[in-house]
């Protein structure tokens, strides 16, 4: 048994589409079998009459009126539906997008929407990345290629294409750049200033730019070039272009270069380019043996030293000596658990420099390789962002919980004298990595080995440097002013046993 009710809304016009949508909403109400809202024309009245929706009260409706007809399970449901019509009729269609960001389906469509576009930030899966990057370059865009798993051949071809067009191809596997004060991908909020950075390393660039900021300096531009740019196969194409750009940039007074040890041929090309410049350079080739530099360049052995040389100041020179040693001294091995690959390398170099044996899944020259089990006779410094940890999982900078399990293992290992950590913040990173770490530590025994950390970031970052430091310190974690300081303090802990 059904109940039909109808009503007339006088002198009301809505376009037919809106009316059909109102009809749909009414039909979806509890207990309603069918509903229609239509303009009161004769045709519509006939249509509604034929489908059993026209009550006697609506027969007199005029074309300027709206007719609402409802067939429901019972009178109450029908009346409720009729009463709900007014709200539906006055409800305006809300803007579905709800976001200020324009969306396009293709790169070509995006450049139509943003004719002033200067850069494409590409983070699609590796097998598609080269094709997208080539499209962007052909469209006249500079490219920050965040994607990894791009072949060396593709990288070379892309960089050649970019060079022919006077465009920068930053990457692949480039996590960060700071251009014109804009942080791209994983990057920190730092003041503008005279230090320009060219980095074949994402966290290396982050550490140096944030330390420069802490030291009261500022960054003109930070250009990521991709980890393989200084290899023979690529020939430093992007590095050399970035150096040209920074050399010609009036805002840049001092240029820092950060990389793993380059291929000799490429190193020569870079050093020749430096020698041609009137500007001063700091060269930080982590793990590089001695190398002759032009007179306008100085060598930095750590990321911290690179920032110090760029600014001409020293950072917290007494931190290591002044900081109280932990009470519960135990074990004889340092366990490094890193999110940032270059921070991991820097920690290894500090330990090696102090005569300590080091093993790593991403070993610097002089360190041993580990695969699987922790070594017995060396300090293990692990890059948790390496492929074997991130395959099918997010990077620990985005999901620091990945570190919790290895941290637990290190804590429970009686051989552990200290744990070394990095906490990387800024755009792209987890919203509160310190709290994730503290939560993990909180569930561990009180008699745990000391944890020595540093926070790579600034006050301007969304996570706020000082808040992250406070969170860590509240859990008894020792926070060093830089990663190099943290590693040096770990050495002091070892040597004070």
């Amino acid at each position, binding site marked *: 048994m059904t109940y039909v009710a109808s009503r007339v809304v006088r002198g009301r016009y809505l376009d037919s589409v809106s009316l*059909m949508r109102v009809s749909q909403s009414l039909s979806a109400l509890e207990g309603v079998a069918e509903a229609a809202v239509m303009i009161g024309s004769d045709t519509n009245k006939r249509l509604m009459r034929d489908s059993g929706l026209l009550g006697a009260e609506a027969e007199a409706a005029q074309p300027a009126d709206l007719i609402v007809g409802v067939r429901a399970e019972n009178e109450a449901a029908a009346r409720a539906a009729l009463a709900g019509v007014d709200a539906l009729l006055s409800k305006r*269609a809300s803007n*579905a997008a709800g976001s*200020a960001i324009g969306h396009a389906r293709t790169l070509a469509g995006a450049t139509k929407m*943003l004719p*002033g576009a200067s*850069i*494409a930030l590409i983070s699609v899966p590796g097998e598609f990345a080269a094709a997208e990057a080539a499209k962007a370059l052909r469209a006249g865009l500079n490219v920050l290629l965040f994607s990894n798993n791009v072949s060396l051949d593709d990288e070379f071809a892309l960089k050649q294409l970019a060079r022919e067009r*006077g465009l920068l191809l930053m990457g692949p596997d480039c996590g960060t750049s700071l251009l014109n004060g804009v942080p791209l991908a994983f990057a920190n909020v730092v003041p503008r200033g005279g230090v320009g950075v060219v980095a074949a390393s994402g966290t290396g660039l982050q550490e140096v730019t944030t330390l420069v900021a802490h030291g009261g300096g500022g960054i003109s531009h930070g250009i990521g070039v991709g980890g393989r740019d200084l290899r023979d196969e690529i020939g430093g194409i992007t590095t050399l272009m970035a150096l040209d*750009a920074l050399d010609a940039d009036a805002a840049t007074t001092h240029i820092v270069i950060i990389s793993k040890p380059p291929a000799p041929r490429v190193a020569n090309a870079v050093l020749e380019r430096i020698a041609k410049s009137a500007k001063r350079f700091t060269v930080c080739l982590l793990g590089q043996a001695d190398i002759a530099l032009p007179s306008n360049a100085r060598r930095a052995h750590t990321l911290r030293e690179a920032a110090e040389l760029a600014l001409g100041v020293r950072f917290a020179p007494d931190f290591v000596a002044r900081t109280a040693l932990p009470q519960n001294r135990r074990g004889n091995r340092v366990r490094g658990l890193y999110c940032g690959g270059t921070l991991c390398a820097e920690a290894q170099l500090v330990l090696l420099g102090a005569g300590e044996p080091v093993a790593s899944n991403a070993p610097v020259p002089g360190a041993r390789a580990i695969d699987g089990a922790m070594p017995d006779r060396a300090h293990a410094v692990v890059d948790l962002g390496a492929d074997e940890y991130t395959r099918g999982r997010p990077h620990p900078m985005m999901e620091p919980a990945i570190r919790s399990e290895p941290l637990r293992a290190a804590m429970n290992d009686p051989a552990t004298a200290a744990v070394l950590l990095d906490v990387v913040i800024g755009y792209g990173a987890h919203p509160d990595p310190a709290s994730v770490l503290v939560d993990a530590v909180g569930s561990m025994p009180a008699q745990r080995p000391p944890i020595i950390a540093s926070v790579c970031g600034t006050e301007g970052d969304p996570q706020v440097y000082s808040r992250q430091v406070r969170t860590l310190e509240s859990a008894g974690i020792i926070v060093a002013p830089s990663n190099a300081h943290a590693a040096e303090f770990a050495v002091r802990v070892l040597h004070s046993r």
Partner: protein
Amino acid sequence: MRRPPRAMTPDLLHRPIEVVNVGLAGFAQDLASRQVPVVQVDWTPPARGDATLAALLGRLAASEGSIVPANAEALRRLLDGEPVLVDVQTAGDVIAGLGERVILHAGPPIEWNRMCGPLRGAVAGAIVYEGWARDLGAATELAASGAITFRPNHDGGSVGPMTGMITRSMPVFVVENRTFGNRAYSTINEGLGKVMRFGGNDASVIDRLRWLRDVCGPRLGDALRSIGGISLGPLIARGLAMGDEMHQRNVACSALFLRAAAAAIARGGGSSEDIAAVLQFIGGNDQFFLNIAMAMGKAITDPARGLAHSTIVTAMCRNGTDFGIRVSGTGDRWFTAPVEMPQGLYFPGYSEADANPDIGDSAILETIGLGAFAMAASPAVVGFVGGGGVAQALDYTRAMADISIGANPKWPIPLLDFAGVPSGIDVRRVVETGIAPAINTGIAHREAGVGQVGAGIARAPLGCFDAALRALAEQERTR
């Protein structure tokens, strides 16, 4: 080839940073939070991740040197057309080969046994209308017997909405493309309710067709000739500014047409009753202009046919069973795929269960950048797909721009800062992006004679474009 010299210093450091973000959306949100201009590309793997199609796209990319100029010429021809509605004539007098027992229908070629309900109903009605059989039963037998020749409208220089019936004695609008001298034809729109284009075939339908033939058609023909025709390009431009997209919504253009023709109709011959009936018929039909717009579409696209190497679509149409497209570089060859169901809203008492699959030649409008391609000009229409408002209308037009090589400056869209409607659908872009052309459409009941039951949006099946891409790649290989 010699490499250009190196050492162009990049100017990136001295330009404002404006970012196209392809991939992880979080990066775009970070940039937007710092007031950096950014557009997010909602990226999907090219060619829907199909390696074979991606390889064919790569092969065509190698022929870029011949494809780009061919497509530029196709676009020039589409944009340079100057369509003028010049006359109403009897179909058999102007369409070659439209004689006894020949029926032109919508869509790509189809045999009787594969025709959907509405198409069969319309065919039976058309046979009765022409007097080739005395009633619908006999007409159906005749049609099934093979005694009727069925041809696609597109082969006759004509187009028709929904079932698209054209037979010899029907009056047809004549649109002339003044730039290229070609002509195209479409019937007079019958109005709403029981009509032949939705498969209607009872006495009221046949009577109306006779009135169109004997009264309305001659009056309109006289009027159009007496005023030297109506230039359609500017009329469409005004219609777009008034919220029409010329496929689902023709309210403004129908009124503009009536305004342009009314005096001439009144001045022409016939009784005042006949004149009043013609004016009332036009004034009472919001979709009157649809058929004129379609004939215009055919007149505009025909000169772009048959350009070697061109990957631009010159026709899209459906017969209720198959969707078919033609591409400039492959001439008159049809590429077909099973037609899809429109998504939309239904009149009271009807639902998807009653709907016939997509049908009609009216997708010629999308082929020239109107209909769903011009949705941004007609936000009222976007509600047919539910949910969205103006923003969704803009998204439709932008998505269609992604698969088109150009825009038509003669037909600007106010809400898009007067950017022209997207023009020149490129088969390669459709396959690469997986964006199927959207088509605004009425929805017919699947049984003959019931009529329209709703309206909505249909998609051109990607299978047509995949097939066309294979053929284009094969041509480039053998050239």
